[in-house]
């Protein structure tokens, strides 16, 4: 029967889709584990870094540093950090929406905004909407501190040359596998450091500084920018794979449901066909007996 064959073909198709989604789920899960490990490995570095930075900021008046220079914000740059690949639920959509909202808000204030996209998905969509420079795509497959260094090399000299006045970073903050929300952080001018976590003066260590504390702070601030960028990169990578894991898990479950309902339909149709055939035979024999 034609209907039976159709249902069978449909079941096979859904089954194949299920195999793909469950394979993608497993790949994403393994990447996610790596990402989480990298975040764990990164934590001591970032923690220690902030400790020293704060203790330095307490000693040195950092407000004079050019990376902290506050200028009337006319020209803005925005880094939008999305993933390179799709099929990860609302991960990029939410981020792009947040970026667009932010862009509109700033453009509404009459500011000149240029976008620096990192990651293919965000770039592909947003470059149609606004001007972009220094985009970096297909970077998440394999990335390390080198990428953060490259990005910081794009943004630091041009800020110092006053090519723009403020820089914002939009990325998905990673909370856990299923929760990530877009956040906007101001990178330049760097928010004042050292104040938010007042370090106990008793704990302050009087080091010998080599070179002087001012010069040291000056060298450490660009590293601080990279610490922030690298963290955002790691969170994006972990978030992307976490989101894909969840999305593919859902898809797999949907496939199973669909296969279940299609099988039921198939079995019913088959039983229907058998019953109809039996009725035919029974009807036929009865007619013969009467005759």
């Amino acid at each position, binding site marked *: 029967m034609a209907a039976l064959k159709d249902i069978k073909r449909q079941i096979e198709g859904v089954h194949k889709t299920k195999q793909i989604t469950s394979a993608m789920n497993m790949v994403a899960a393994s990447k996610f584990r790596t990402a989480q490990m990298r975040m764990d490995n990164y934590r001591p570095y970032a923690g220690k870094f902030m400790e020293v930075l704060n203790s330095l900021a307490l000693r040195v008046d950092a407000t004079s540093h050019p990376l902290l220079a506050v200028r009337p914000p006319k020209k803005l740059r925005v880094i939008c950090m999305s993933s390179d690949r799709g099929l990860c639920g609302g991960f990029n959509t939410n981020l792009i929406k947040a970026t667009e909202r932010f862009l509109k808000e700033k453009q509404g204030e009459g500011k000149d905004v240029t976008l620096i996209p990192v990651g293919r998905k965000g770039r592909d969509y947003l470059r149609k909407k606004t001007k972009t420079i220094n985009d970096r795509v297909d970077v998440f497959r394999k990335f390390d501190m080198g990428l*953060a260094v490259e990005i910081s090399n794009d943004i630091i000299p041009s800020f110092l040359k006053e090519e723009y006045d403020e820089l914002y970073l939009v990325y998905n903050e990673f909370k856990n596998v299923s929760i990530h929300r877009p956040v906007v952080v101001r990178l330049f001018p760097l928010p004042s450091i050292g104040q938010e976590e007042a370090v106990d003066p008793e704990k302050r260590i009087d*080091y010998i*500084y080599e070179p002087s504390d001012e010069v040291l702070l000056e060298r*450490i601030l660009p590293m601080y920018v990279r610490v922030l960028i690298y963290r955002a990169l790691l969170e994006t990578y972990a978030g992307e794979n976490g989101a894909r894991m969840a999305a593919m898990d859902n898809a797999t479950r949907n496939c199973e449901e669909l296969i279940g309902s299609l099988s039921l339909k198939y079995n019913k149709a088959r039983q229907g066909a058998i019953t109809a055939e039996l009725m035919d035979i029974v009807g036929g024999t009865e007619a013969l007996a009467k005759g």
Partner: protein
Amino acid sequence: MADELMLEIVTPEKLAFSGKVEEVTVPGSEGEFGVLRGHALLLSSIQIGELSYTKDNKRICYAVDTGYAEVLSGKVTVLVEGAERSDMIDKDQARKDKADAEARLVKMAKEDQDYELVKAAVAKADMRLKVAEKA
């Protein structure tokens, strides 16, 4: 042992080394300096160079990127953006990186915005090669 020193080399990727050592030599930006137990408290920036320590009379070298070192009594923490032990360095890759960076450098003018960066890349590849030779 009283004359031992804790050393930690921390990079964004991992804890590259953590353990007791006898002596550390750090490529400070103002010149190389050695640290033994009981060294004065010090905070120094680090430039691309060779960091080495002695443990059980063996000298172990690392090629390190920029960062800084914090010396407390009995403990040295080195925070660098990259660190590779001499026997882990991929010499072919380093050679290739050096050639690439040098080729780019030749084409550039001194005033170029990236000039210093490429120069740093050459220095880095060079240092990795040099340290790799010691493995």
